[in-house]
């Protein structure tokens, strides 16, 4: 299989039109790489070989548990014929080549890392491999066809030569314009390698997260933020705090109050005795309940914007069946609270942290500090959970500003309470699902979604300087359109599903008033999967059909969901649960991956007990099968928390929850047995970080209906 490297890099043709932005190597000299080394073989930004012969991979996606560290090393290792564990993996700094072809910025999200990296990294590695092979042919005076790469050496019938020996020759070669990629049937590591390369550091405590970074002389900063979103400090009195041990200074920074001390404990204790008068800002008086009531009113008062219409309205005959669903705000609650180390000098700012989008952060820090992007460096680390939270640059900006204003190296550390109350939340949403039913035939499926727009909130609350500055023009325009009331994330998973009914329609009404919103693992699918797959279940029961059979009967014939649903149903022994247990099912496609889940529940003492989740997934070709399983398990546990417990409530514009006692998350004793099965596929790989989440809540709610006859249309699920 041969791919013209140039056409791939310039055209991005394999991804469809308009995606060339992420792949523009031309015009960038190697010396512009933030990881440039004058002594390495470095034909592209992704992979280099050091004089000692070590192969180094720039990890341009953030490792937050989803497994890119291992997956990307495996894809690179494949074309170099070396064990993935031999590759040195470095967290990449921002570089234009690392921008995502789907999102236009350097970002980890949308379950896109493996999907695009599959081609990017194999080509980058194959380029390095080809140069080493050519160098070896010259060095040994042997035909290239007689040479092979193996575990960091070039091997031939008479012996072997290591990369270090070949480096001087390889560095003098022109970068090839064409490379040959392995055929999948020749893969040795992709689909076969099963270990996690980042596990050793994580079981020995040696992995370095942002919060672990040691900077000589750094002070610890904690920040008192206005608890009311959009509010700011009116006045404060720090006289008591300044008398406390270790405290260096207390000062206002951009509407908040920073406390600097030698250690976290000292800073936190001192922050507790700073008295602050807050200006509550524009959301004073707003509550999550008032917002919910407003959304219910908007279901009838607002027409909204049509997102999708298929078929003729006249085909919708029979009687109307309607149901209204609600979901609350959710926090990400990553285990590692937000944090960043920042050092500011006259020349610029340097940051050490864990973040999902250093690109966005660079522009935001530039806007906030007055430095140019080029004067700012961000060093990434392992992320103690991301789930979308660390896309946001807020905590980096805070650290940068505190460092700038104090003139000292600082380590900003959020408390759990800061984290719970200063998140960018999964939107709350209300949806009216409706269908016409004509003598047990469903003739239409309609949804009217009322929800705030994530991008609308982004624009309104993160900053008023963000949009004009940091985005490439294309995305600026795109986001502008989204923010004006047609955010595709609001309808994703309901609109453009491959269910087939004579008439189908989705409308979206944007609720303008909102707290800060963010991208939460599976984004719009996290609630829309619940809405559509619960309602489909309602329609099956309304027409007295089996929920699996009903779905199959109303799916496109060539639907990718079909086989996945059938596999999950078969493995779960659908229709024959153990005595006293009841089953529910859901199947959903998100981020180009299809997942079906069957949940077994029982009800005891008025409580829902989840016994087992059987999960089937189709994600194309697999890079590391055990990581696919792990992501399904993790997605299920994450979704169980949301379905059974998760709810952020607002009073007077402020979050009421604070820590894990009032924002509970699933614990091991509540975790069901989980089985994961994969539909084999030779298609190009697709992502698995998010798609395990959406089917769980509807499958669980559908099982609760089977057990109790109660149709729970509100998350978290609470029995009547």
């Amino acid at each position, binding site marked *: 299989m041969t791919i013209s490297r140039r056409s791939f890099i310039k055209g991005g043709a394999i991804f469809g039109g308009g995606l060339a932005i992420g792949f523009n190597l031309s015009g960038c000299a190697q010396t512009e790489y933030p990881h440039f080394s004058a002594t390495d073989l470095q034909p592209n930004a992704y992979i280099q070989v050091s004089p000692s012969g070590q192969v180094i991979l720039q990890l341009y996606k953030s490792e937050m548990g989803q497994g890119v560290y291992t997956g990307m090393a495996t894809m690179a290792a494949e074309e170099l014929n070396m064990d993935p564990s031999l590759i040195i993996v470095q967290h990449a700094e921002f570089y234009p080549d690392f921008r995502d072809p789907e999102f236009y910025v350097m970002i980890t999200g949308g379950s896109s890392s493996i999907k695009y990296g599959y081609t990017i990294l194999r080509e980058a590695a194959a380029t390095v491999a080809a140069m080493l092979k050519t160098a070896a042919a010259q060095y040994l005076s042997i035909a290239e066809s007689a040479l092979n790469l193996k575990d960091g050496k070039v091997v031939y019938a008479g012996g072997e030569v290591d990369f270090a020996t070949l480096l001087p020759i390889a560095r003098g070669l022109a970068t090839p314009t064409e490379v040959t990629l392995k055929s999948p049937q020749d893969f040795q590591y992709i689909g076969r390698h099963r270990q996690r390369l980042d596990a050793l550091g994580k*079981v*020995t*405590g040696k992995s370095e997260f942002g*919060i672990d970074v040691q900077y000589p002389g750094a002070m610890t900063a904690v920040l008192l933020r206005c608890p009311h979103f959009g509010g700011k400090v009116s006045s404060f009195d720090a006289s008591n705090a300044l008398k406390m041990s270790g405290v260096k200074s207390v000062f206002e920074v951009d509407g908040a109050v920073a406390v600097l001390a*030698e250690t976290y404990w000292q800073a936190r204790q001192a922050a507790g005795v700073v008295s602050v008068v807050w200006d509550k800002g524009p959301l004073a008086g707003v509550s999550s309940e008032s917002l919910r009531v407003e959304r219910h009113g908007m279901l009838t008062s607002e027409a909204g914007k049509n997102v999708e219409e298929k078929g003729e309205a006249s085909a919708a005959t029979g009687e109307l069946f309607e149901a209204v669903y609600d979901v609350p705000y959710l926090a990400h609650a990553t285990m590692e*609270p937000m944090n960043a180390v920042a050092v500011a000098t006259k020349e610029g700012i340097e940051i050490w942290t864990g973040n999902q989008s250093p690109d966005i952060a660079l522009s935001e820090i530039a806007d906030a500090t007055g430095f140019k992007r080029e004067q700012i460096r961000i060093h990434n680390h392992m992320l103690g959970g991301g789930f979308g939270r660390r896309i946001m640059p807020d905590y980096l900006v805070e650290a940068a500003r505190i460092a700038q204003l104090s003139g000292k190296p600082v380590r900003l550390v959020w408390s*759990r309470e800061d984290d719970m109350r200063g998140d960018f939340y999964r939107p709350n949403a209300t949806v009216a699902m409706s269908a016409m039913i004509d003598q047990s035939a469903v003739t239409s499926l309609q949804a009217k979604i009322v929800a705030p727009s994530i991008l609308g909130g982004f624009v309104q609350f993160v900053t008023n300087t963000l949009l004009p500055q940091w985005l490439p023009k294309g995305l600026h325009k795109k986001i502008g359109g989204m923010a004006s009331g047609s955010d595709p994330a609001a309808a994703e998973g309901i609109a453009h599903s491959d269910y087939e009914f004579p008439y189908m329609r989705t409308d979206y009404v944007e609720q303008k008033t909102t707290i800060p919103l963010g991208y939460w693992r599976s984004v719009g699918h996290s609630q829309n999967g619940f809405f559509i797959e619960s309602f489909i279940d309602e329609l099956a029961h309304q027409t007295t059909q089996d929920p699996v059979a009903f779905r199959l009967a109303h799916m496109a014939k060539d639907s990718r969901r079909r086989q996945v649903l059938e596999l999950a149903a078969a493995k779960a022994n659908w229709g024959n649960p153990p005595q006293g247990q009841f089953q529910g099912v859901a199947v959903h496609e998100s981020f180009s991956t299809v997942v079906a889940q069957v949940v077994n529940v029982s009800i005891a003492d008025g409580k829902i007990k989840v016994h087992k989740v059987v999960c089937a997934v189709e994600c194309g070709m697999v890079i590391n099968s055990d990581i696919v399983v792990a992501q399904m398990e993790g997605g299920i*546990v994450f979704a169980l928390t949301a379905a059974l417990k998760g709810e952020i409530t607002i009073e007077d514009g402020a979050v009421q929850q604070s820590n894990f006692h009032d924002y509970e998350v699933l614990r091991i*004793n509540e975790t069901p047995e989980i089985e994961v099965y994969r539909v084999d596929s030779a298609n190009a790989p697709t992502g698995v970080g998010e798609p395990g989440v959406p089917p769980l809540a509807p499958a669980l709610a559908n099982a609760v209906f089977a057990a109790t006859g109660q149709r729970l249309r509100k998350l978290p699920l609470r029995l009547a």
Partner: protein
Amino acid sequence: MADLEFTLNGQQQTLSVDDGTPLLWVLRDHLAMTGTKFGCGMGLCGACTVHLDGSPIRSCSYPAEFVNGKAITTIEGLASSDENLHPVQQAWLEMNVPQCGYCQSGQIMSAVALLANNSAPNDAEIDAAMAGNICRCGTYPRIRKAIHRASELAVVQHYQPANTVKENV
């Protein structure tokens, strides 16, 4: 100020900190031992779990002056080297337990303490002992499997015929 004298992973430590400073921040800020993690500050999540004379404690809520004269063990003290891991760490690797990994120091410290008291716990005993440790990535199914596996490995390492009968493995 509180004067502290205790052993940390077998080494004597002598230092002074502010009264009431939790052990977690003595480890992280005063001693730069960052393997032990900050998660909630209220003993709710278990990320900060260390051993006090072999028993698990939540170091974020444990005043450091109470460890005087005691032996503290952290994740850094479990193994002499990466080539000679504790059976629990070895089992964690075999089962690919970690995802983001942030909670795993605490998970492992809780699991080591469990196995020290119960060399072959069943699932219910594992759940009871590990319920104080939150993992947002959802590695719980693998933690259960890894504790069973660690139990096997530990039996091999410290062979005692009377203790080889295990339940529910």
